[in-house]
């Protein structure tokens, strides 16, 4: 972990950790129920409402805290699906090659050409907004990029001297993948995962902007897009949730980046 001790890495780790903590502890941290009518309409930030209130008189700070929780759930769900499928397909395809590579890559390609944001739009527009649907659609369709990049790196690495060397020394496939290949793939994996999870947050926000987010699950994206409607009269409505998204995405990326760098130097 010493390798993380660069400013960017520390900042990234701190922000990510903060996001996780806020998400997990939301019920204890939030001053009120994020849906309760708790004050005047569109009050600017005050001592009682540090981030102001929205049009209905709900506390924005509580919304942001609970929004972090919702967004954390969405991001974790999608991230997990993408990680598991993407890594498996990428490595198997690149390392094994042959017909298996062909089959997997055709499948990946078919999925990859399904435009993801578009699919999410269609699913949400037809089946109604909901976190579960969003996680499934995005999780099942976001992994091809990771899989393809992993595959292409595996392909290149496979022919490199150190892998050939390991192979001639009689190392098993499993050993080669885990000990020789995997460490070399890590930077790319972390960078892509950082970007992907961040994208999920942003897709959530864009769906909200197009009027397709779930009002029953207050997410950061929903709050930011709601706030956009009041941009000229109540800046705090869009600013704080927007800032929260920015901080979360930034944290995830900086962390991913520095892990990538650290592994490079190993």
């Amino acid at each position, binding site marked *: 972990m010493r390798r993380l001790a*660069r*400013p*960017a890495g520390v900042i990234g780790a701190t922000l990510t950790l903060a996001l996780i903590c806020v998400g997990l502890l939301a019920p204890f941290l939030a001053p009120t129920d994020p849906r309760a009518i708790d004050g005047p309409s569109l009050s600017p930030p005050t001592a009682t409402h540090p981030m102001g209130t929205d049009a209905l008189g709900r506390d924005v700070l509580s919304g942001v805290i609970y929004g972090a929780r919702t967004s954390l759930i969405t991001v974790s769900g999608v991230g997990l699906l993408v990680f598991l499928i993407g890594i498996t397909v990428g490595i198997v395809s690149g390392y094994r*090659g042959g017909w298996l*590579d062909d089959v997997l890559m*055709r499948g990946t*390609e*078919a999925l*990859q*050409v*399904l*435009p*993801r*944001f*578009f*699919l999410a*739009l*269609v*699913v949400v*527009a*037809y*089946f109604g907004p909901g976190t579960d649907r969003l996680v499934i659609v995005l999780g099942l369709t976001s992994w091809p*990029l990771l899989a*393809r*990049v992993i595959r*292409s*790196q595996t*392909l*290149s690495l496979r*022919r490199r*001297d150190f892998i050939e060397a390991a192979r001639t020394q009689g190392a098993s496939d499993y050993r080669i993948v885990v000990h020789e290949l995997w460490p070399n793939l890590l*930077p*790319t994996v972390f*960078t892509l995962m950082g*970007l992907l999870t*961040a994208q999920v947050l*942003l897709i959530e*926000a*864009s769906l909200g*902007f*197009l009027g397709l987010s779930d009002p029953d699950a207050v997410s950061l*994206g929903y709050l*930011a*897009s709601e706030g*956009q409607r009041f*941009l*000229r009269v109540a800046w705090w409505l869009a600013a704080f949730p*927007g800032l929260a*998204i*920015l*901080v*979360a*995405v*930034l944290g995830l*990326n*900086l962390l991913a*980046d520095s892990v*990538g*760098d650290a592994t*490079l130097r190993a």
Partner: protein
Amino acid sequence: MSWGYLLRRLAQLVPTSALILLVGFALIHLAPGDPVLALAGEHGDAEYYAFMRAKFGLDQPLHEQLFTFVANLAHGDLGTSYVQGRPASQIILERLPATLLLTATALTIASILGLGFGIFTATRRRAWQDTTATTVLLATYAAPVFLIGQALILLFALGAGWFPVQGMTSAVTPSNGFSHAVDVAHHLVLPALVLAAPEVAVIGRLTRVGLLQELGSDHVRTARAKGSPPPMVVGKHALRGAVMPVVTVIGNRVAHLASGAVVVEVVFGWPGMGRLLVDALRDQDSPIILGIFLLVSLTVMTANLITDLIYVWLDPRVLFS
């Protein structure tokens, strides 16, 4: 490059296309909702519904609708839009140029800036420039597109008055020829920048990671040890390897740009395909939805093919796998 490889890749497109077609059709036709209800608005009656359903063939069993759709597709006919009463292909093609102009401009901007940022940050690793540049880049990537868009509109269009707020052309002075091109370019600046912003980050960061890997690899170390000047090392050896992930990303971002353009087109009132899609989704105008779906998928497929061909060209070892 062997022609056999190219032919094999082209042949592979057939089952992929079939799968895409099927997924799109199934998703739209099995979903709840009824386009005829959307057409009727508030006051339809049973007679009206039956009449409209028959008119658009929606009263047929699903497999026959699929058969008709595929048969028509073979003639380049996507069906008739429920709302506009015109061929869906014609409607989509009308809106395509605006989206192409927007996305192509954004992709060009993003590629140039992205590669530049990637090289800049990779060669200044651990330096404060790297951290600063990375953070700035990430910030543009991390903010929701519609907020960046609105902020730019407020700052540079309403505030400074440098750019128009909405649309692709001016309303009051219709222009022709050269002045028309200038007018469109003037309208294009803000939306293209907003659409390009996150792509700059993606391309920049992957260039950086790829470059760092290559700079640390044996053959680059050898080149350095042999005393090649640093710019030569970056340019000649490292960039070639680093371009691989970048090419993958650019190929992949075509899909992202096309669908990402949806939000930008709404924010800036840009008359492209993305907004057509939003309208069609609202009206459940499935010939248009399916048409755009197929078009975007086909574009991504082509982009992927080109990506793969560039792979082979850059690193012929791939071919022997």
